[in-house]
C-alpha cells in the first residue's frame, strides 16, 4: 500500500487550521489586533517624541553642567593662586581683625 504524502500533509494542515477555529472570534481578534497595532504604533511615536525631548533636555543640562564646571575650575584656580601669594596671610589677618571690630 502506498501513502500519498501530500494527502497526509493536507489533512494534518486542515486539522491544524480548523483547531479552535471560530469565525466570530477570529473577526473580533483580528479587529482588536489591528487596533492594538495602531495604538502600539502611536505609542512608539509618542515615546520617541518624548525620548527626543528628554534627550534634548539632557544634552542641554549636560552642557550647562560643563560650563558651570569650567567656571568653577577657573575660580578654584584663581583662589589657589591667591592663597599661595605672600600677601595672603596679611590679608587674612586684616580680614579677621575687621570681623572682630565689627562684632
Amino acid at each position: 500500500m502506498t501513502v500519498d504524502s501530500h494527502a497526509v500533509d493536507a489533512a494534518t494542515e486542515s486539522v491544524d487550521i480548523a483547531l479552535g477555529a471560530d469565525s466570530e472570534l477570529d473577526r473580533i481578534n483580528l479587529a482588536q489586533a489591528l487596533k492594538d497595532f495602531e495604538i502600539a504604533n502611536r505609542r512608539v511615536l509618542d515615546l520617541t517624541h518624548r525620548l527626543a525631548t528628554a534627550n534634548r533636555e539632557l544634552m542641554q543640562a549636560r552642557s550647562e553642567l560643563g560650563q558651570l564646571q569650567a567656571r568653577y575650575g577657573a575660580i578654584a584656580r584663581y583662589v589657589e593662586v591667591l592663597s599661595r601669594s605672600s600677601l595672603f596671610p596679611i590679608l587674612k589677618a586684616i580680614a579677621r581683625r575687621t570681623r572682630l571690630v565689627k562684632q
Partner: protein
Amino acid sequence: MSARRARVLLAITVYNGRDFVPAAIESATRVSSADHDIDVLVLDDHSPEPRWSEELAALCARLGVRYYRTPRNLGIPRNVNLGLLAAIEGGYTHVLIANSDVLFPANLVSALVDCADADERIGSVTALSNNVSVYSLPNEDPDTHLGNQEIVDWVSHTLNAHFGTRVFDAPAGISFSILIPVRAIDEVGLMDPVYGRGYCEETDWSLRSLELGFRCTVAPGVFVYHAGRGSNEAAGLVKPGETSVSINEAIVDLRYPNFRRDLAPWLASGMIESVHAEALRAIGRAAAAELGYQIDVAHIGSMLESDSPTVVVAPATGGDAVLRYRGFEVPVPVAGDAAPDVAQSIIDFCGGAPSGVNLLDRGPHSQRLADAFGVATHAPRASYPARV
C-alpha cells in the same frame, strides 16, 4: 436573587496546563445556571505543549463548551480582552474572567451576579479564594485540603449563607475569577496591552474604573479554589518564587504614583483580617454543626490529617482553643480558665457537644476537661511530649 435573568459569559484563559485545566473546565460546566444563563468560553492562547490544544478542543467539544485557539500567542491582557469583547459583541450582561488553575463553586455566577447587581456603581466583583493576593483566606495547605470540587462547593455555599450579597471595597480586583458587568467595560475599556504577557493589567483596569467612579469589590460569599501561578511559572512569565512581574509593577507606579501610598492605610485598617475572621468562624461553626467534631486535649494537636472538624484545647490552662478543619484554623473564644467554662464555651461555639475527646497530652486540666465535656474519653498514649 437578582431581579432579572442575566446572561453571563464565563471566559477561561488557558496557556498549557494539561495537569489542571480539565478540572477547571469540568468545574465550569457544573456551575449552576438555575438563576442566570451561562456560556463557557475557553480561550487557548496558542498553547505550545505538543498535542495539548487538540486534547483541549476535544474535551471542550465533549463538554459542550465553546473553544477558541488564537492563531498567535497574545499574552494574558489581550487574551482577556478577547473574552471582554466576546461578551460585548455577544450581548451578554456580565463577563466572568477566570484563570484555568481554579475550581469553581456551583454558586459562582448566581452569587457574583447578585453582588454586582446590588449596586450599579459596582464595576467588578472578585471572588474570595485561598490564593487571591492580599485577600487570600488563610489555609494551612490549600492544595491538599481544598483542591476538591465537593469541598469548594461546600465552602462557597457556607460563606454565601453567611455573607449573602455583602461585598467589601478593595483597592484592585484580581482576574483569577472576576465578574465585570458589561456596562462597566463600555466605560472603562479593555485591559492595556502595555502589560505584555501579563500581571498587573487588572490592577490598572481597576484603578481606571475607580477613577470613573466605579466600585471595585471583593465578595466574601463566593469561594473559588485557586492553585495559583499554574502555567505562568512554567512559561517563564514569573520567576520561581516570585508572584509578580517587576517591570509591570513599575508601569503601575509610573501611572499611579499614589497607589502604593493609598494602599498602606487600607491594608493597615484591619478590614480584611476582620472579614477573614468572620469567614473562618462561619466555616468552623458550619463544619462542626454539620459534621460533628472531636476534641483533642493537646498542646499541638493530632499529627493525623483528619477531614473532620477538631477542636484543640490546651491541657495546661484550658485558655486557648482552636477549631481545625481542612486546613482552616478558627480561634474559639473561651470564657474563663475553669474546665467547665472552657467546655461550655466550645460547646456554645460549635452548637453542640463533641462526639469524642482525645487526651493527647497530660496537664493539670486534661482530665477535668474530658469530664466537663461529658463524653467518652479516648486516651491514645503519646510516645513522648508533643511540645519541644
